């Protein structure tokens, strides 16, 4: 019985929210002092209004909001057989989260070091990849935004965009071909006499980090470029005329101005790296553990969907925490990040 009410509540909640919205809209309209302004239906006509409401309602409710809420609810349930759903075993529990911490659904004696370590590696490596990408992209973004001529700019933009239309798996595969023990890098190194044995780039995760940084380069480049582009070139000239050394100009003129772009690029790259699945699966060495493949295995190897959901939520929460931290550090608002 409890089960039905809980699910019913989840399904009902959005409709309550919509009613709230409606009330808010009516109130705003009354307050705005334009009572003559036409309402939604009068403005669009019945047919179009229905299309708009059905399309947006379907998307926002059935594809975005409800699945997420449902997943949260699901993660607090034990793994059940289909006939046990709604039965006495179908209760709320923390066991899926407990499993992440302790590696067992009941005992709390040993830490689940494998999963916790993988989680931390993922977070720390994603931050490192984010930082690396910032360093790689900043000079080119600055050049594109402030010094390039229009024709050069178009060429550079096209060259940047082209590789990113290539599928993520194939990009990872390309790195594997490049870095494998018989690959171009190793054969060149050996031919040059720099090393006598092939270096195991994939085993020690160099391949993974390179592949991740490569995969999300563009997500850093464009926000940075957009932000630096809006800086008036005269400000740089003024700083130069006043005798500022070049690194002063970057640290105290360009970067403060580009702060929203930096924050936005960092958020995107971090989110995508932490949630990356293809690169770790293709490029990860036998000893490396990334968090998303573990989530995948919870689903399709262990067939424990509630536990997989719990892991997914842990990932989602850490991503949200990262965004909030970035907003706090850079002192920018969400609107500026998603611009």
């Amino acid at each position, binding site marked *: 019985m409890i089960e039905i009410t809980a*699910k019913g509540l989840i399904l009902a909640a959005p409709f309550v929210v919509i009613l709230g*919205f409606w009330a*808010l*809209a009516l109130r*705003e309209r009354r307050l705005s002092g334009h009572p003559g302004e036409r309402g939604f239906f009068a*403005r669009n*006509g019945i047919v*179009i209004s229905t*299309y*708009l409401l059905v*399309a947006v309602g*379907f*998307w*926002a409710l*059935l594809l*975005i909001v409800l*699945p*997420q809420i*449902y*997943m949260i609810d699901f993660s607090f349930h034990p793994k059940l057989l289909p006939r046990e759903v709604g039965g006495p075993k179908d209760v709320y529990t923390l066991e899926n989260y407990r499993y992440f911490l302790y590696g067992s659904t009941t005992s709390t004696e040993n830490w689940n070091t494998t999963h916790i370590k993988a989680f931390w590696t993922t977070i720390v490596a994603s931050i490192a990849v984010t930082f690396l990408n910032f360093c*790689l992209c900043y*000079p*080119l973004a600055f*050049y594109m935004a402030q010094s390039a001529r229009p024709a050069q700019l178009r060429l550079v933009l*096209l*060259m940047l*965009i*082209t*590789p990113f*239309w290539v*599928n*993520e798996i*194939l*990009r*990872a*595969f390309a790195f594997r*071909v*490049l870095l*494998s023990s*018989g*690959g171009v890098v190793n054969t*060149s190194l050996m031919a040059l006499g720099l090393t006598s044995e092939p270096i195991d780039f994939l085993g020690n995760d160099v391949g993974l980090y390179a592949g991740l940084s*490569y995969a999300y380069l563009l997500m850093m480049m464009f926000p940075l470029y957009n932000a630096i582009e809006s800086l008036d070139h005269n400000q740089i000239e003024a700083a130069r005329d006043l005798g500022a050394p*070049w690194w002063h100009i970057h640290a105290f003129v360009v970067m403060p101005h580009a702060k929203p772009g930096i924050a936005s690029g960092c958020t*995107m790259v971090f*989110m*995508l790296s932490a*949630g*990356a*699945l*293809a690169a770790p*699966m*293709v490029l990860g060495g036998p000893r490396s553990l990334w968090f998303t493949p573990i*989530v995948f295995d919870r689903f399709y190897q262990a067939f424990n969907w509630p536990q997989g*959901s719990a892991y*997914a939520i842990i*990932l989602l929460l850490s991503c949200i925490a990262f965004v909030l931290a970035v907003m706090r550090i850079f002192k920018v608002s*969400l609107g500026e990040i*998603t*611009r």
Partner: protein
Amino acid sequence: MNSTTVRKAMFGFYTVIFFTYLFGPLLVMGISAFNTPSYPTAWPFEAFTLKWFADLATDADMMYGLKTSIIIGLGVVALSVPVGLAAAIVMTQVYHRARSIYYLIVVSPVLTPGVILGISTVIFWKDLTTVSGASWLFNGVFLAILGQSTFVSAYCMLVFTSRLQRFDRAQEEAALDLGATYPQVFRHVLLPFLAPAIASSAVLAFLSSFENYNTTTFAILADKTLVTVLAGRVRQGTTPSLSALAVIIVAITLAGAIAYELLRRREERRAAAEKLAAEQTRDTPMPTSLAA
């Protein structure tokens, strides 16, 4: 040598490194598709061969995956483009606090990791289809279309939003004053204005769907698309026929990407012309795109 030359040389060196990093891996993979050794390698280049391409055509799994990918891609276009259009139009009609909440909700799929979108879609729709008695809908193709549309619709919406920013409401008013009904205005004024955006968002939707892995691998269940077949193969081991497939996919996606770029450019040029023609733009402040 003064400091400017040094800095220029350093920047040149950096640019070379950057673009080698960007194109090197793809180039090496491309060359390995035409090289004879059975382990994919570009150097030493032993002999030119098309054998690896011939191997592909006989691969039943890949061909099956390709078919599913195309079906899903078309489904995503059919769902995401109308939804994105509706969402963008609604965006122009909500104000104040409602707008920021609405914007937060509809942009969130862009920021959510793809695996999470896939997982939540499967879990929710499994129960929804079972409860509503339509469990035949619980199949990989249908779920993949839904899961991908969750974020592809947001991409489409951003494309439409940036186009709508340049729409002059006076056109709509004029048509209404001349006696047009609302559906007529929508059909004869707004849709023609949005036509280029519809084309480019359809291309964008198909490409994003075709190359998606993170969301699809969860939502596809036991079925398979070209990319999931590919992922399975890559995990098993590397053969030059994968490089050959990569060359084909790269060629297809590049053709699509160039088509998309051309559409976008044409639209931009037209927009610039329109802007010149009508100098009094009364835009409403609107959040602009971050993706694409």
